[in-house]
């Protein structure tokens, strides 16, 4: 449990930390969309500089971002190698059967690598600079127009908040149950598949029972305090769209124009 940094948020006081979570969420999705516009090395260089500047502004160490890339490294390498050995065109450096190492292959491999790294860096930047509950608030606010088609916006937001609130609690619970089972002689991850399956059931049952009991308690407590759904409810955390949020979108617009120009 101590190793878990909830949602991997790193508290700070940078401009990025202070931005409206809605602006950060929308801008991050927008940025990932425009990465696909890049077709030249100049465009990728611009995106890399842009992302590194944002990381610098966030005052968060680059190590955190590099750690985010590591779990995906095998997938990135697999994709990059496919590009390198199966792309035809340009000067041929080496050829063996259907495999070839060409000028375009190397260029495309480098582009794909950059694309992956940029997407991961930007996603990591969003969650490192925004508390999970603020993001849940942002999602609720962004989804609000869907109320017109009777989408249960408040219920979804409440569900997300409860999920985020109870992850550490259930994590502790799981550790306790597992320790209790270990004390009784259960070896997790040992034996054949059938034995591993059998070892999981005594964890899942108490975990479900305890979660469902918590749900009962929470429902009773909320009703006792007069919870009547989201309509007319005041908020503890109030989201405010400021000038810097608008500026962020203007920058995104300029970046899009530059990427189109560099295609």
């Amino acid at each position, binding site marked *: 449990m101590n190793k878990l940094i909830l949602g991997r948020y790193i508290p700070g006081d940078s401009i990025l930390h202070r931005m409206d979570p809605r602006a950060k969420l929308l801008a991050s999705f927008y940025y*990932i969309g425009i990465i696909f516009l890049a077709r030249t090395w100049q465009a990728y260089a611009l995106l890399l500089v842009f992302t590194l500047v944002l990381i610098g502004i966030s005052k968060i160490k680059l190590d955190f971002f590099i750690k985010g890339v590591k779990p995906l490294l095998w997938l990135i390498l697999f994709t990059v190698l496919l*590009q390198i050995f199966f792309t035809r065109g340009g000067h041929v450096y080496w050829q063996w059967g259907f495999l070839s190492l060409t000028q375009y292959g190397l260029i495309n491999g480098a582009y794909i690598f950059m694309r*992956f790294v940029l997407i991961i860096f930007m996603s990591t930047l969003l969650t490192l600079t925004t508390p999970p509950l603020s993001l849940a608030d942002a999602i609720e606010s962004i989804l609000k127009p869907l109320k017109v088609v009777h989408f249960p916006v408040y219920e979804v937001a409440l*569900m997300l908040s409860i999920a985020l609130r109870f*992850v550490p609690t*259930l994590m502790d619970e799981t550790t306790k149950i597992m320790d209790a089972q270990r004390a009784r002689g259960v070896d997790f991850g040992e034996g054949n598949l059938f034995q591993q399956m059998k070892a*999981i059931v005594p*964890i899942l049952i108490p975990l479900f029972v305890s979660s*469902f009991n918590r749900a009962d308690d929470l429902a009773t407590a909320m009703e006792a305090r007069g919870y009547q759904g989201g309509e007319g409810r005041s908020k503890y955390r109030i989201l405010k769209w400021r000038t810097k949020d608008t500026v962020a979108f203007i920058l995104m617009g300029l970046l899009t124009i530059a990427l189109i120009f560099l295609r």
Partner: protein
Amino acid sequence: MTNQRRLKMVILNGLVAALYVVLSLFPGMLGFASGAIQFRISEGLNHLVVFNKKYLWGVFGGVLVFNFFFSSENKLLDTLFGGGQTLLALLILTLVMPYLKQTWQKMLMNILLFTGSMSMIAWMIVLTGSTGGTQMPFWPTYISLALSEGLIMTITAPIMYMVDKVVHFDAQMKS
């Protein structure tokens, strides 16, 4: 539905989403290992919808929360495509379920739907890994993803069946 029942349903789904995240965060200890392959036990929660379709929102929420807040990988695209795949498969399941009488039939349908819908994830990988000049191979990517998903869904089906015999998922949602 009364306000009280509706509130209980939302809270129950919130806790199911939290449970999905917790089970995903313990892949080493709470996952099955067979050779070099690791499977996430949390995928078994997809079978909750077989017992009561209202669990759909909890499972969907769990996928979104895990991919968005806790996955150290391709956060935003994983959230969009992973969430979309889960929602699509489970929505189709809820539409087909009334025509299936036995629990094992519903579980089998769920396994087939999740295996089939892995094409969305394969498409995401192909999309991210393709440039203007070359296309990532779709079929090898899809087949490897579908096999692992099909396997973990098959393994967890009897587990969830056994857990239901004690916990009674349907009754919990209706209480």
